């Protein structure tokens, strides 16, 4: 029972971290696109890659929490 709760806290913390990370990436990408709309597609690709790296760390944490 206790282990399950601690794992849930860990998963929650990972979600907070990833949320902050992806939020920062998204906001910066938005700013970038607003400044240079012609570079939107390049910024989007780079944004998705960066978001994928952040997300991967969070998902590692979730997998560890599940195990």
């Amino acid at each position: 029972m206790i282990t399950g709760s601690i794992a849930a806290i860990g998963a929650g913390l990972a979600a907070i971290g990833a949320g902050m990370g992806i939020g920062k990436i998204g906001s910066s990408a938005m700013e970038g696109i607003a400044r240079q709309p012609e570079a939107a597609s390049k910024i989007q690709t780079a944004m998705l890659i960066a978001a994928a790296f952040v997300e991967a760390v969070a998902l590692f944490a979730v997998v560890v929490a599940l195990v």
Partner: protein
Amino acid sequence: MDCSHVFDLKVNRIIVVFALFLALFSVTPSLYAQEDTVKATEAAHAEPEAEKKFNLGKFALHHIADSHSWHVIGDYFIGLPVVLYTNTGLVAFNSNEFHQDDEAELVVEKGGQRFVKMHEKIYYASVTPNEHEQFVDVDAEHHVKNARPLDFSMTKNVCTLLLSVVVILAVFLNVANGYKKRAGKSPKGLQSWMEPIIMFVRDDIAKPNLGHKYERFMPYLLTVFFFIWFNNMLGLVPFLPGGANLTGNISVTVVLATLTFLMINFNGNKYYWKHIFTPDVPWWLYIVLVPVEIIGIFTKPIALAIRLFANITAGHILVLALIGLIFVFNSVFVSFVSVPFALFIGAIELLVAFIQAFIFTILSALFIGMAIEEHH
């Protein structure tokens, strides 16, 4: 030599063969359904509160796991072949012989050996049942102690894999044929739907990351992209042709990542290896840097595998958890909240299915591009 016309004639035949293959494993109603109900009522009388409790975690994990039979509707299951490599050789039978028993209560005797199925794993049956009428020996932590034969069964995931191969072959042979027939003319039909996506893989994934050598890697990138995308989409279909969670299976994603790993390291040029073993730093930093770089070779594909697996699994669990809320609260009114929300998540999952295929492919292209980059 171009052999695609050979396949083209056969693609319809492949579809027919696959359909017959599935039809072979007859759809049978569970004969034990009635008995199950009787058992359930008895249990409900014995412990009314405990039996009613709905275990959401168990429900979700059961639905995303691989299975030996394919659920159609209600009590109907397609039995898939069970192939076991036992101590005395190969044994094969239809999984319907277990009658959907998953608690090791029913023993199947084949080839002079006795098997039971528990939680989708097949064990050699014990001689006598334990106190819960299960033909297995369980230790204090509820782990089964019985020996297991090597399981080469055609499970639900294997069938979906073959199905997706048939779908992808049918689509792409059609498209390739279209280019041959209408060379230089505008695309038509399925071809015009696939062309922008293929162009997207070429122009947005391959060219920016691989430079002028991109053509060598296009076959791999296109295969990986469409394999992952089609299987993500098939996994989102909740009824028969879909329903298996192929890209949410760690073994499948590990194989895909291993292919990328091989692509990176077999194509890596001398600059790639020099960067790993003798980077341009003072020699005493090698003690730290070389191990880090060597670990880096392996963490890239591991991250690829886990990212795809965890994303797809998380999406499926989310939908199942939302639907499961109805049963947790045991009230139909919860569905007014949970069904629209599950629909919303389902719509997001359509996007995620594409994004994950894109991310896997672009990261593969990026890593291969880093390995084949010429030194400036």
